[in-house]
């Protein structure tokens, strides 16, 4: 008897994804960089590199360093700025058949609001991901992500300004992530995504200098997966809005861990560097798993952890 193919689609508020596999902001450029390697239209969606109001030059190099099973980065939110994005990058993305989610970062609430307004006014953007958690921007950014009141304030401002679904991206560098997740839920977020990078550091013992020009950076990759999974599980058990899991997902099995823990979608980040085809393999792998375990859809798997 031939089985019907399982339904991979998921909903994040009003946003429908054909499958739960998104690309994580900052690890997939503006999509185009992977066009030769990945069938972009097979993705659940693309989250583009964090955008600010003005173009940002980012930090001086060195900006990246490898650590055991991890990557430390201190890009410093280099980006083309919202207007150049709309003019130069969005046309390519708009031509894709999948949702494009724009990750935004402001220095203060006003900037977040302006970004949300501007991006709501153009065609071709499916949702906003509000980055309140980038550890590499000295002013603003990190404060919002580690204080639940500030996080709620940013969320409310973006909520009021945007006509798009809003995903708030949480920082793992906190004592109580559930507290922050609840605050942004209450403030009107349609979903939360987690985790962003853990703040870390590396030193070159021969020169006795930091390996990153910025001294500290954000740790991503498989090294952080256990922490990410724990936080996703905690948050999924505490909020009603959808949770998007992220952190160290390299394979379908990794993605499945997050789905089982309660994430209704996942973001693939550093894996894109290691294996450009990672997202494609993860989508296929999830489908195979659903077939093998007799799940008719991915929704039935979400949060199905047996305790």
């Amino acid at each position, binding site marked *: 008897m031939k089985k019907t193919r399982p339904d991979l689609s998921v909903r994040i508020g009003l946003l429908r994804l054909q499958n739960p596999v998104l690309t994580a902001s900052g690890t997939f*450029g503006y999509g185009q*960089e992977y066009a*030769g390697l990945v069938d972009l239209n097979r993705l659940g969606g693309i989250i583009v590199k964090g955008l600010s109001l003005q173009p940002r030059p*980012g930090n001086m*190099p060195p*900006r990246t360093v490898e650590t055991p*099973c991890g990557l430390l980065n201190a890009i410093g939110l280099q980006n083309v700025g919202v207007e150049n994005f709309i003019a130069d990058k969005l046309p390519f993305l708009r031509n894709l058949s999948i949702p494009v989610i724009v990750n935004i970062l402001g220095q203060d609430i006003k900037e977040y609001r302006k970004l949300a307004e501007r991006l709501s006014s153009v065609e071709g953007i499916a949702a906003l991901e509000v980055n309140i958690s980038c550890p590499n921007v000295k002013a603003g950014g990190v404060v919002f992500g580690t204080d639940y009141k500030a996080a709620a304030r940013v969320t409310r401002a973006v909520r009021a300004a945007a006509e798009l679904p809003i995903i708030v991206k949480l920082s793992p560098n906190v004592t109580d992530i559930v507290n922050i997740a609840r605050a942004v839920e209450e403030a009107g977020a349609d979903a939360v995504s987690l985790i962003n990078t853990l703040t870390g550091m590396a030193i070159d013992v021969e020169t006795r200098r930091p390996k990153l020009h910025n001294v500290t950076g954000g740790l991503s990759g498989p090294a952080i997966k256990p922490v990410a999974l724990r936080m996703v599980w905690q948050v999924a058990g505490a909020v009603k809005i959808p949770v998007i899991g992220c952190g160290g997902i390299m394979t379908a099995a990794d993605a499945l861990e997050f789905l089982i823990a309660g994430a209704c979608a996942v973001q693939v980040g550093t894996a894109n*560097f290691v294996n450009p085809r990672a997202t494609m393999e993860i989508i296929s792998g999830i489908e195979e798993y659903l077939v093998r375990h007799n799940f008719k859809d991915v929704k039935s798997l979400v949060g199905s952890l047996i305790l």
Partner: protein
Amino acid sequence: MVRGARSKMDQVTATVLENRFVASSVYRLRIEAPAIARVVRPGQFLMLRVGQTLDPLLRRPFSIHAVHDSRTVDILYRVVGKGTNLLTAIKKGGKLDIVGPLGRGFSWREDLPSLFVAGGMGIAPLFFLAQIITQNGTGAKTSVLIGARNKIELLCVKELKAMGLQVEAATEDGSAGKRGLVTDLLTRKIITSRPVLYTCGPYPMLRAVAHLAREHGLSCQVSLESFMACGLGACLGCVAEMRNGDLVRVCKEGPVFDAYEVAWK
């Protein structure tokens, strides 16, 4: 002028034809990868997955060293750390996961004399450029200045001479060629001819060559190195500062740059 082209990249599984110890801690890896061999240009590079597990996590970048028969590609690599160490363990018949060709390679003029200035492993990509220039054989004179710490680490000299190139060498310990730095050879050389410079090697050498080129008003192309997480232009990690203040991606806008455009430190 032949532009430093970008070729269509792909992720391929290549078969290892040979992984041979050359000298000192340098190996030559020969792989069968027609899709890459057909399109790759001198100065471009590949990102290799060197192990099977998650440590080392990232791919490692290596220049194309030579191409044969539009089917096989050579890489010349030095063992410097855990990734290159693992690479030596891959045997003939083994498989390698490769992304490439990547980056923007050299832009060369076949009608002007060329001078290659290579330090250490810098000969790796220049060798491929020499291969192409001599192959097309439009005839303008090409010479090579090559430097290394010692005789053993002086690579490819025989092969370059076999291509008909004039090769001058310098070693830091004087065990072959002139004692000293390759830039010492260069100072003398520039006075007697006005070639286009193509250079690759350690940063201080590149900077010295760039300064000399500028002093003498010579056109100069440098291949830069940078720590690369993706090699695809996606992570924005590998940037180098340009004279105009821009931070540009070495993996995408480079690795080959016009020496005048680089903000030398």
